């Protein structure tokens, strides 16, 4: 009795504030941090797997990993990086930032939001646990019938990806509902910050494309465990059907991973150039254009699979057309920094790195869309290089830019600039050193997903491996910076960057309900240098509005 009472007393006592990050919590800011930290852990896991891959490829011959082990490591590297790192970390930013940016108290469905997060740790553990029962080994694309023949871990993999997809659909419903119904007074759609536009475009894609992947994965899982014949040729099944279902999601998934990243870049450039974003509407509309076009290009991954040859050309055209809205974004960003007053804080460096690297990924995408060239480079290291320039050089750079940019907002502390610069330069050199040689080695004839290669490719592979190890090492200054600064960094102002978007108009970190009083918006988000709406001075926290 006595013990019960003391237990009850202990339960009533408020828990230390950091404990909420380990518990069910419906505050979008807590959930955002949960997302970012959890997914960063998976980034480290995926990165370690990449180090194994690059070690194996340091020299020709099968030395460190045999064929099966290599396939498992490579498959899980891809799956972890895409499904457990890039997609959910961007959802994490969305969770933390979107309600603040639109002047809301929280997301529209806080409990759904928490549920969406809590699907991720079990899904991640499921994917990694598959190593104990024979991990997935059919690549992240899980092409049938190879994935039907793979060991039991492939089933766990499928279940894990279904869970992650469900989580992603949940956050898409939540984002769209929040953005449609909970904007602050005066925040019309043409005053929405571009990051919010990016999240809108991404959510539309998640909502329409992810369920198709879920359906496809269910078919694969049923083929594996229930004896269905969907993809088994002997029973009349057609392996190409899986490629349709898979790529109908997985090509848009690239835009799911890139559009919010582009949104982050669009936030960073105006702030650190002290200039309005150039061509706001065109950037916003190009996000939507990319989303819509992105749903129509999936079969360009299937030019070499025996699809109807007449249908290839429309897919080539739609794939190439995506270059146009993408170009609009890049030119607009350049025009934004043109004649600006640039400050090279770490977020700005990563944003410029984003442009320079994403550009390479984008331009090589045109080669891949051109069918005659694709018939040579498809499924080679050229593709590996292309997708890493888009997703690592692009999305991950933007994620780093966002992490540094919003670090003071989220933690209430300032990170260390010098470590940030070190991190950037290691990352920049590492990215180019790791992935540029892959273009060459792919053109020369090295297929992707091989544990062994022709000795003539050795030098290029060694360069790539050295770049890869540099990338691995580049995480260390970041981690040190993030941890130490959170504990001991200088206290940050509410608005250390003198930014104009709403998330900076409240204290760092924001109070539980985000704003003392909900703001009323009277101007666009990037009106730097305008006479009337002066940039707010750095204000001591906590503060809401002026």
């Amino acid at each position: 009795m006595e013990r019960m009472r003391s237990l009850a007393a202990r339960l009533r006592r408020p828990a230390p504030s950091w404990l909420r990050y380990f518990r069910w919590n419906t505050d979008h800011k807590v959930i955002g941090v949960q997302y970012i930290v959890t997914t960063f852990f998976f980034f480290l896991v995926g990165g370690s797997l990449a180090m194994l891959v690059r070690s194996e490829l340091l020299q020709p011959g099968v030395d460190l990993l045999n064929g099966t082990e290599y396939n498992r490591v490579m498959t899980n590297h891809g799956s972890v990086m895409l499904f457990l790192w890039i997609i959910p970390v961007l959802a994490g930013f969305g969770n933390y930032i979107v309600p603040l940016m639109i002047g809301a108290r929280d997301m529209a469905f806080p409990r759904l939001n928490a549920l969406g997060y809590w699907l991720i740790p079990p899904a991640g553990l499921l994917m990694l646990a598959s190593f104990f029962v024979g991990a997935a080994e059919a690549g992240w694309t899980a092409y049938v019938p190879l994935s039907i023949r793979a060991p039991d871990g492939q089933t766990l993999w499928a279940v894990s990806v279904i869970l992650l997809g469900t989580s992603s659909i949940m956050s898409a419903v939540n984002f769209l509902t929040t953005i449609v119904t909970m904007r602050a007074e005066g925040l019309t759609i043409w005053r929405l910050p571009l990051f919010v536009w990016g999240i809108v475009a991404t959510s539309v894609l998640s909502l329409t494309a992810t369920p198709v992947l879920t359906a496809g994965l269910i078919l694969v899982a049923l083929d594996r465990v229930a004896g269905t014949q969907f993809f088994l040729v002997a029973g009349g099944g057609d392996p190409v059907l899986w490629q349709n279902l898979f790529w109908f999601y997985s090509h848009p998934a690239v835009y799911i991973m890139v559009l919010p990243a582009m949104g982050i870049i669009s936030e960073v450039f105006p702030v650190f150039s002290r200039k309005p974003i150039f061509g706001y509407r065109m950037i916003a509309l190009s996000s939507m254009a990319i989303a819509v076009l992105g749903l129509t290009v999936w079969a360009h991954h299937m030019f070499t699979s025996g699809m109807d040859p007449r249908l290839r050309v429309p897919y080539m055209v739609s794939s190439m057309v995506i270059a146009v809205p993408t170009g609009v974004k890049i030119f607009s960003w350049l025009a934004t920094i043109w004649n600006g007053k640039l400050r090279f804080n770490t977020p700005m460096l990563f944003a410029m790195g984003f442009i320079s690297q994403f550009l390479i990924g984008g331009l090589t995408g045109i080669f891949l869309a051109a069918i005659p060239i694709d018939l040579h480079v498809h499924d080679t290291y050229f593709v590996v290089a292309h997708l890493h320039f888009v997703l690592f050089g692009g999305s991950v750079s933007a994620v780093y830019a966002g992490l540094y940019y919003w670090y003071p907002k989220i933690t209430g502390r300032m990170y260390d600039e010098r470590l940030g610069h070190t991190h950037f330069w290691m990352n920049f050199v590492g990215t180019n050193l790791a992935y540029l040689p892959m273009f060459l080695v792919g053109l020369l004839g090295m297929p992707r997903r091989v544990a062994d290669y022709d000795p003539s490719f050795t030098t290029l592979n060694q360069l790539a491996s050295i770049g890869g190890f540099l990338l691995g090492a580049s995480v260390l200054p970041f981690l040190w910076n993030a941890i130490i600064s959170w504990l001991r960094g200088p206290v940050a102002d509410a608005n250390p960057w003198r930014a104009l978007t709403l998330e900076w108009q409240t204290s760092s970190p924001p109070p539980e309900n985000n704003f003392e009083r909900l703001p009323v918006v009277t101007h666009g988000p990037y009106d730097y240098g305008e006479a009337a709406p002066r940039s707010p001075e750095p204000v001591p926290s906590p503060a809401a509005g002026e």
Partner: protein
Amino acid sequence: MKERSLLLVIFAALVLTVGGYLAATQLHLMPVQGSTRAVEVDRLFQLLLGITAFIFLLVEGALLYAALRFRRKPGDEADAAPVHGNNALEILWTIIPAAVVVFVGVYSVQVLQDIERPQDNTMVVEVVGRQFSWEFRYPADDVTTGELHLPVGRPVLFQISSEDVIHSFWVPAFRAKRDATPGQVSELRITPSEVGRFPVRCAELCGPGHAGMITEVVVEEPDVFAAWLAETKAGPTDPAAIFTQFGCAACHTLAAAGSNGLVGPALDGIGTRAAEREPGVSAQDYIVQSITDPGAYVVPGFADGLMPRDFKSRLSDDQLRILVEFLLAQ
């Protein structure tokens, strides 16, 4: 000041154009051109390389220039002059890329039609992929072999299929690739234009031995090809050739056949080891059993189910006998 910036623009344009031109004509990034198709694909590739190199230099140059030129002066806390956009500029950088894309698209379609146009006097070669080897059939001459030989200058139509999972038939020197998908036959046309030996690789992940699913295409003069075909029709009698042609080499290391596959157990010294594997089974019977019924005994440390089960029907009795004798002697 104005003149200087004008000069700068002219200079930059020159650098970009020259850079694009060099990229388009001088950089040689592709392997040997082994087919007429390769010539056309490379021409398209060089054109794209030129265009993209121009855009690349333009954007990276602007980025670098901005980083150097527009750096904030120390102590300058003011905002920059607000420019929200410029309709003419925005329309321009939408339309120009769109025009370039249309041009590239049209040109690509032309190349595509050229390289896939059916030719007279085409020779059909059936390609069958299986874990982890290729098999080639010349239906007109009723020849099945593990080696791909082609006469130079004669158009070839590959009819590609698979017996297990998806593979992808790729000859980098031909700039040609097509998936071998079970349950369907895909077509690929090329005309070899260079005599020589070029690697054939599997480009689609097909299992643990994917990296080793490599063979060669031998392009030779028509009379040499005809002789080879006649000889092959008689059937291979050289044991090392049987070992290679039936795909054993893809998975098993054997010095005498020059192979170094790692998917299955190494076969060096198998002649002495074979008798000890299963009590009561002679070395010869063990080897026969391992070839015709691989699941009967699986060497510890290796997975069952990877080795094809159909050697009994694919190998003639003579070939099986030659192969077993060959292995016994190792």
